[in-house]
């Protein structure tokens, strides 16, 4: 019982941190996507203005 108790406690803390880490990764991925999009649009606007 106690050994199982301990493993599940470990799973619990692991799961909690994993969820938070996954969210941070999602945010970071979205950040770079948004940055690229802004860059792309800025260049597009500049090109069109130059014409």
């Amino acid at each position, binding site marked *: *019982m*106690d050994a*199982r*108790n*301990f493993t*599940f*406690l470990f*799973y*619990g*803390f692991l*799961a*909690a941190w994993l*969820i*938070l880490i996954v*969210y*941070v990764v999602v*945010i970071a991925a*979205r*950040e770079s996507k*948004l*940055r690229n*999009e*802004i860059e792309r*649009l*800025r260049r*597009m*606007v500049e090109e*069109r*203005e130059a014409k």
Partner: protein
Amino acid sequence: MRNPILYLFAAVAAVLLAWDLYQVFMILPDELNQGMIYRIIYFHVPAAMVAFAAFFASLVASAGYLTTKEMRYDSFSASAIEVGFVFATVNLVTGSIWGRIIWGIWWTWDARLTSMFVCWLLYAAYLLLRRAIDEPAQRARLSAVLSIFAFTDVVIVWKSIEWWRTQHPGPVLSIRGGGGMAPGMQAPLYWNALALALLATILLVLRMRQEAARREIDSLRRQAYAL
């Protein structure tokens, strides 16, 4: 993240979490009936507190948006719900793992668990709704209304352990008049709640910047089409 205050928050949160882990695992004894597994409460309850605080903040910001029509309230509301949703997920998952040991089952349909799951579904629906609307003002308006509607379920979750006889333990914290937990065992829980709240604040600020970036993308798109 260039903001020094965010670094300060992160440092304080890290120190608090490390100190708490040390307290919880090294200092505190096992609980009499539950043994080791009770330590899950140090994540389970603070995660719920942070999630509900975030949902409440979103409720206030939604009301703010509907009265002022300022887009930053909408960004705040959306970011708070997304961060709160993550912490609600942590709450559900840790609770389920605890239940597997104590009850022998992963899930049971009592009032607390059901209402919390419904809460999770409602805020998932909120995030879905935002994706389904393209026009920013319409998206802000409708999601603000949904945020106000969804919060009523948070109240039900919070009160459910008093209204019904649930399998889920009743109030144990003395701030809710439960008084089932020794004060020395409660203190690390509050510190953990503070640490997770700081973490949530950092995530919230990062997420709000992305909303600002999205608004910039929208205006750049309009500019590009106009040219």
